[in-house]
């Protein structure tokens, strides 16, 4: 472990701990982290994203906390009506539910370390358990269906530099409830910093959660998010990941399908340019019969960019009639672009329908030629093909206004390819 990244136990004194038990848990977790260090490629889960090396290259020292600071003015989304939650550097600032029955929504700043994942393997979770002092707790009452989406504005202030921020979120949907979240990251810092999140999502019977993850701009942030989901029977989860933008981003999602007839969808369209590094890692655990999971990851990698998809589908012996699908497609725009994919099936039931696949390749020269014979420059032709490639995912967003908004955001990114 890079000695510079060791964190002194005295750091924990800076946190307003709940009680001695909390403090001990944090100290214990920190000790584990200091033994483990940031994960290296020797760890199977980090095979293609040696975060220890990446951090060593980009940071000399890390500062664990940040004094509170107000963000510069924020460009709130005006294109469609929404409720909002404002998080600044991972801390809940304010929220407004203009369109909703407020009695049905519980929201508070989250710093309850009873939520212990105890995933000793993953040192970033240990680090998070030790140091997280902020976050969001959101609970939707049984039978309540949101009128409008919530946009979670995740704002990072411009004075962040070499900071290591840890935060924890928890989202609980009651029975028969429905919610649509757009997580919109606005990064005002021009400097490098690390944001380490663990998130816990619980969908009770018949609940439905749709999420969209989107970046407002290109930035120098290093993001890691571990997300653990639990799905009860007949619940429905659908997520779109458009997380291009940060210098480093790894989304690590693990879902337990615990009740029958649930449906878990993960779709992603990534545009990875410059020397950016993005990974999506998923683990879908089919623990009971009759559930469906679907994953489609499309990535465009340009310049020195690097993309990774590691997806595992686990089907327990009793999980008959499982229907699981997983596909990763990557388009490489430059000789130096790289994409690694590791789809995995681990199946112990015999009556299941599972398929997986992955492809990666260059843009088809004949297609470029076809478009150029219609007057388009090579650059225009490639942009159109890239757009088309990602559109297969973006086109699935049902709300017209949200889809248009995202199309624009992605178009801007691609335009600068």
């Amino acid at each position: 472990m890079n000695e510079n990244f060791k964190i002194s136990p005295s750091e924990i004194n800076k946190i307003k701990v709940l009680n001695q038990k909390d403090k001990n848990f944090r100290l214990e977790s920190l000790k584990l982290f200091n033994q483990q260090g940031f994960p290296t490629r020797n760890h199977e889960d980090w095979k293609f994203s040696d975060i220890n090396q990446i951090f060593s290259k980009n940071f000399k020292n890390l500062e664990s906390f940040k004094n509170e600071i107000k963000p510069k003015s924020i460009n709130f989304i005006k294109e469609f009506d929404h409720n909002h939650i404002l998080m600044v550097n991972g801390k809940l600032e304010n929220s407004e539910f203009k369109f909703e029955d407020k009695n049905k929504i519980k929201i508070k700043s989250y710093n309850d370390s009873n939520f212990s994942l105890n995933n000793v393997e993953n040192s970033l979770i240990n680090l998070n358990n030790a140091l997280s002092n902020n976050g969001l707790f959101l609970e939707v009452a049984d039978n309540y269906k949101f009128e409008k989406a919530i946009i979670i504005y995740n704002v990072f202030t411009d004075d962040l530099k070499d900071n290591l921020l840890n935060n924890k979120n928890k989202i609980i949907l009651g029975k028969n409830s429905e919610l649509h979240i757009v997580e919109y990251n606005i990064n005002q810092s021009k400097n490098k910093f690390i944001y380490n999140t663990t998130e816990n999502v619980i969908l009770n019977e018949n609940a439905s959660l749709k999420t969209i993850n989107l970046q407002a701009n290109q930035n120098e942030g290093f993001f890691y998010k571990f997300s653990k989901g639990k799905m009860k029977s007949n619940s429905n989860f659908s997520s779109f990941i458009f997380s291009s933008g940060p210098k480093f981003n790894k989304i690590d999602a693990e879902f337990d399908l615990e009740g029958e007839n649930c449906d878990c969808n993960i779709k992603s369209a990534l545009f990875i340019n410059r020397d950016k590094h993005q990974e999506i890692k998923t683990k879908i655990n089919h623990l009971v019969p009759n559930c469906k999971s679907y994953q489609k990851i499309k990535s465009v990698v340009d310049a020195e960019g690097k993309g990774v998809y590691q997806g595992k589908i686990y089907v327990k012996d009793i999980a008959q009639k499982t229907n699981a699908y997983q596909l990763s497609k990557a388009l490489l725009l430059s000789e130096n672009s790289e994409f690694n994919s590791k789809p995995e099936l681990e199946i112990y039931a015999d009556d299941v329908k599972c398929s997986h696949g992955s492809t990666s390749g260059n843009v088809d020269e004949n297609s470029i030629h076809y478009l150029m014979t219609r007057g388009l420059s090579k650059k225009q032709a490639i942009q159109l093909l890239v757009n088309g490639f990602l559109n297969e995912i973006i086109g699935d967003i049902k709300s017209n206004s949200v889809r248009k908004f995202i199309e624009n955001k992605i178009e801007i990114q691609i335009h600068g390819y």
Partner: protein
Amino acid sequence: MLVIKNLKASINNREILKGLNLKINPGEVHAIMGPNGSGKSTLANVLSGKNGYKISGEVKYLGESLNDIPVEERAQKGIFLAFQYPLEIPGVNTNNFLKTSLNTIKKAKGEKEIDTIAFLELVKEKAKELGIDEKILSRQLNVGFSGGEKKKNEILQMKILDPNLIILDETDSGLDIDALKIISDGVNSSRSEKKSFLVITHYQRLLEYIKPDHVHVLSDGKIIKSGTSELALELEKKGYKKLN
């Protein structure tokens, strides 16, 4: 309009066009026939400016050498190729593509760009003339189009982009009789003193609809015989073997 002198083209160290000569005047329709693999599509590709060929000889378009002109500039200058196998472009909306293409060409010509409403009217009119179901134009470009729909879509693009030199590579293959008639009408109504056509086909039938001024036989990378539409009839009866 187009003058080709001693054109040779090779790809992957294989010579495909082996010294081809051809002259097309404004307003003329030339047909090229020839056995499979004789180099017809290669000629069309080379004229479109496709990369990857090693080329010698001279190709002049409107008095200007095309040798160093890239693909998109040729298109902007009015050269249009209707592909033998139009490509499927997933995720790209046909109408959006057509509009981008038209406006890029207009811009290059120094003309004013067309707005969406005027464009949609234009497409609607042209699609109707060609008997194209407008619904397919809001779909992804050529994706899942039937063979005939793809060919019609090529002619639609020709009509909208309004080029001067039009190369039709086996546009008639795979068309039913009615579609053949519609497409031929589409071509005929575009004929003018300023436009020239190079029609590549295997079938004399198309040439009954689109009357060529000249018919050439391309064999093994060279034009081995030229004549009037009589030649096409003769070929239909005797085949290529009996030539010479």
